[in-house]
């Protein structure tokens, strides 16, 4: 039994397609599309959303993803109508990236709050900057280019003034699968990390952000430098280690 997901879009094709895409990475998660109006036009339908919520009830909670403004309003109204539908959370996230990240988190057994966080961690990427870039670039002119990419085995703290404190756990892991860091591995890493109580960066980007991880463009043979802080820091590093070392289950 996992958390279930409802996808509300103005377009039936978008809702169905997003679910189809995410289902590839999360085959055991129930995802219910609620796209378009009940007579097949562009728009959102309270009836459709409410029946999707009913269908999704009875699991470990429901996370709802929405696209444009009135889809958010329809989803909120559906919750108001349903009167106490149990653990139903609206995630403020891009519908495709958010759904994939949420689905992978749910597949991994994350709680309803963790699934919502996994979806929301995809928000705004790549517009927001990698987590520690601000610190690095403000500390004099550290080596040209992206100071966020802390190379190889050096630990971040202690060497440069202005850098964040030493992380609680770190690790370096070489990608062994042929395709490297593409969508599915990024979703697995982000989904799992979002469920943990730890701040994690991978080569300087937010480890809980699927899109962030994908922007690393890390191919086979690249080394992922993981830094984690917080109560689950050790588990976070071990989680990434396990996935990378088994090649994400890929050749």
């Amino acid at each position: 039994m996992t958390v279930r997901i409802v996808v509300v879009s103005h377009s039936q094709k978008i809702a169905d397609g997003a679910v189809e895409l995410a289902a590839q990475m999360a085959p055991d998660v129930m995802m219910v599309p609620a796209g378009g109006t009940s007579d097949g036009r562009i728009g959102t339908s309270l009836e459709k959303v409410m029946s999707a919520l009913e269908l999704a009830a009875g699991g470990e909670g429901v996370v709802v993803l929405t696209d444009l403004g009135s889809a958010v309003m329809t989803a909120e109204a559906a919750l108001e109508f349903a009167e106490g539908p149990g653990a139903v959370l609206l995630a403020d996230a891009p519908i495709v990236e958010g759904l994939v990240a949420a689905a992978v988190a749910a597949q991994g057994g994350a709680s309803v709050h963790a699934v919502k966080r996994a979806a929301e961690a995809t928000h705004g990427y790549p517009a927001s900057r990698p987590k520690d870039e601000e610190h690095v670039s403000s500390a004099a002119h550290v080596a040209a280019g992206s100071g966020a990419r802390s190379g190889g085995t050096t630990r971040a703290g202690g060497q440069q003034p202005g850098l964040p404190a030493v992380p609680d756990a770190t690790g370096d892991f070489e990608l062994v699968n042929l395709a490297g860091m593409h969508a599915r591995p990024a979703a697995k890493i982000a989904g799992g990390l979002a469920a943990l109580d730890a701040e994690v960066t991978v080569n300087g980007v937010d480890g809980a952000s699927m899109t962030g991880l994908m922007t690393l463009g890390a191919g086979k043979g690249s080394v992922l430098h993981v830094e984690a802080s917080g109560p689950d820091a050790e588990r976070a590093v071990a989680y990434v280690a396990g996935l990378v070392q088994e090649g994400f289950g890929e050749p």
Partner: protein
Amino acid sequence: MGLDVNWAVKWLTLSAQAMAEHRVWLIELDRAIGDSDHGENMDRGFQAVLDKLAENPPETPGAALKLTAMALMSKVGGAAGPLYGTAFLRAGTALGDAAYIDAAGLAAALGAARDGIVARGKAESGDKTMVDAWTPAVEAAAAAAADGDTLAVLIAAAEAAEAGAVATEPLVARKGRASYLGERSAGHRDPGAASSALILRAAAGAAA
């Protein structure tokens, strides 16, 4: 004596007539600053309300308004669906199971409707939205309710809503699709404020 379920059904019937009559006008208002579907959406939505009322004749005003909420949210499609749906739902909830509505209850229900629109759409006064019709209507209704005359409350609300809708014309939109137009949204009446005024005028017409 107050307003009963027959008033509510007549209100909704007159609203549906108003949406059908002003369909093209609302489409034209919406074409100027939105996506030109407001007239069509509202007409379709209120026709669905009439169907629901015929299928399940409500026994109280509150029940009539809740049924309206469900029909609008399911059939309107655009942003107006959840906004009007929430308005009618909150108003219906405020009325409860009462068979008759007095002036104070009426003013409170209108206030609940407006609060629902604000909560759902997050718009404030002056954003060039339906809130600019509803807020003056609610204030006028509350002032008129002191005399205890429901018709006077509804007439005050309708007049204030109409004035509020006209007053959206010079505004620059800050919410909804019109906000993408920025300064170019000025000079046009907000379609949602316009349809709100029609609905509140129908409420007064039903009580006359």
